[in-house]
């Protein structure tokens, strides 16, 4: 057999890092498509009606790439009593029923399940030596960190940009630099070039911007196509979004990481683990308020139990911690216009509250 073909689901900018990793491990990478209307309808067609939007989009993406006959699909595993833990397996079965049998490899954050992680790497690395695989992994990690870094910078700049769209344009150029960079030193250079590109965007430093925290489920936070590009939307309304989940902090999930701290903060309000990112969302709202943020947007897939539990606490938290919270439930029925209206009214409301 020749070179194996591998693919995975698109999730924000991380696709660029995974692409490089799998190429380094000797695979031919089938580029994961950016979720669009077509992918969503494919996913909706073959998913259970009450599955959440991440499930549907990811399934739709697999169905779209399956035509290219991937041998391996890599996916993230879920945690705890949230349905997402079964989703990888469900995806595999649905594909099987439709007559496709790619191998699935599920990954969990390395610090949570270290043995499992290395077993999976072993399975994935194929003929590559273990040392080379580790070097490739480290390089991919560097790229992931660089991607997150320029994304965070783009959020800060977009809220202050003088001409609409300049930041997004510069950010996309930066992404192409990083995509082309294949060695540790070129990744560093590409990152610096991307930062430089963003710094060149003309900004109005006098403009007063709002700082909006973003909490909620991981997939709808990380994939802009799933959350109506909410970070760009906020940026265009002169607000800086501060996401709580980045793949680089999620992958470092451990007893000492950010989400564990958030859960500790959430304890007085929600002592139970409710699965998914529910407890974390609650803790994050509390810490955003303590840090003096102007508001919080909770992103939740429709029918997502952990986020529903968290949402029911939001009116209380909002009052108690004195911070405005807007919850957006996302599913295939959600319309762009509705999201825009709500976010715009939310930003208006915060600005008026502060004027008084």
């Amino acid at each position: 057999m020749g070179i194996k073909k591998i693919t995975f689901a698109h999730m924000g900018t991380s696709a660029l890092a995974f692409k490089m990793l799998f190429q380094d491990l000797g695979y031919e990478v089938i580029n994961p498509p950016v979720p669009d209307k077509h992918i969503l309808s494919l996913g909706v067609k073959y998913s259970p009606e009450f599955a959440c939007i991440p499930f549907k989009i990811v399934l739709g993406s697999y169905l779209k790439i399956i035509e290219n006959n991937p041998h391996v699909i890599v996916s993230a595993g879920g945690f705890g009593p949230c349905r997402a833990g079964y989703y990888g397996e469900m995806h595999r079965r649905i594909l099987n029923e439709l007559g496709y049998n790619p191998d699935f490899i599920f990954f969990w954050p390395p610090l949570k399940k270290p043995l499992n992680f290395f077993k999976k790497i072993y399975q994935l690395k194929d003929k590559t030596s273990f040392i080379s695989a580790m070097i490739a992994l480290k390089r991919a990690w560097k790229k992931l960190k660089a991607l997150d870094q320029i994304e965070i910078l783009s959020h800060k700049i977009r809220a202050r940009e003088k001409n609409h769209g300049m930041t997004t344009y510069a950010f996309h150029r930066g992404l192409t630099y990083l995509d082309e960079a294949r060695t540790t030193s070129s990744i560093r250079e590409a990152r610096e070039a991307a930062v430089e590109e963003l710094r060149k965007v003309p900004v109005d430093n006098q403009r007063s911007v709002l700082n909006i925290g973003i909490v909620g489920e991981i997939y709808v936070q990380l994939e802009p196509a799933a959350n109506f590009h909410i970070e760009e939307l906020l940026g265009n309304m002169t607000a800086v979004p501060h996401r709580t989940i980045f793949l680089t902090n999620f992958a470092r999930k451990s007893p000492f990481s950010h989400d564990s701290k958030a859960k500790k903060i959430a304890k007085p309000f929600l002592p139970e683990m409710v699965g998914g990112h529910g407890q974390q969302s609650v803790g994050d709202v509390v810490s955003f308020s303590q840090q003096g943020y102007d508001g919080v947007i909770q992103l939740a897939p429709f029918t997502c139990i952990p986020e529903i539990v968290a949402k029911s606490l939001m009116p209380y938290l909002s009052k108690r911690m004195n911070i405005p919270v807007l919850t957006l439930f996302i599913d295939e029925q959600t319309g762009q216009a509705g999201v825009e209206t709500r976010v715009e009214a939310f930003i208006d409301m915060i600005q008026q509250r502060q004027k008084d």
Partner: protein
Amino acid sequence: MKGFLGIDVGSVSTNIVLLNDHKEVLISLYLRTKGNPIKAVQDGLQDISVQLAGTGIDIAGVATTGSARRLAGVVVGADTVKNEITSHAVAAIFVQPEVQTVIEIGGQDSKLIIIRNGVVVDFAMNTVCAAGTGSFLDHQAVRLQIPVEEFGQLSLQSNNPVRIAGRCSVFAESDMIHKQQMGYSLPDIIAGLCEALTRNYLNNLAKGKDLKSPVLFQGGVAANVGIKDAFEKALDKQVLVPEDHHVMGAIGAAIIARETVKNKGSTDFKGLELSEFFYRAESFECNHCPNICEIINIFRDDVLLARWGSRCGRWEQEAHHILTSSKRW
């Protein structure tokens, strides 16, 4: 004399209000949008231009709101484009400065706005369900062959409202048919429907929110005394329906226009003679990058008037000189 226009283009109706400098309503129009927002705005402005002839009133500012706010804003040359939640809140605070709760039910959406000390502190908008909005009531009125205006009066005649399942508009309809077949009187069924829709609204939007008096009820559905009555019973509070309840969004927009122009100094209004022009909207998919944005072009007599939809801004940059007024909404 100065006049300020507020234009609220919604799914069902297009409302236009003209205020004078003292925020008094000079003209208010309530037109059906009929799926053609540009035409509705053109017709409305035509009507206003006829009514204004010889009065010496100059349009000194204009703002648009409602679901077609951006499109309407480009067509008329709006000084500002505001979302409908803010517009409704501004109008409510204007007619009742002490207001703490605003219930707004329009053609296809419903909103709840919580206000404290004249500032919006919280809001909710229906997401998954349009039961209880104007379109549904319209539909039921047609089915029962009663003019929708008489709906509320009929419900007040009921002494014993039946319980209708109001969770979903389709099931509400089948439940109503079922109750009709069982032989309940029409007023009891209609009163039951009003209660069911009120329940649906409160369950969907008001969970965990503190609805304090004074409560204002606005939007087209506020004309229905049956729903107002059901709200008063459910909340155990007096519910006030302002005189101009059906055009509150437009009033709010006109007030916002007045403030904006005060800060800005001049208006971008393109004049009342819009009906002489031909407008059309076109869209295409940009294949420049994997985002595949849908770009929308608005033309006035074959001249590009506005363009939006590209995330990277490249199409907007190109049309920059015409877009200056509608850039920030």
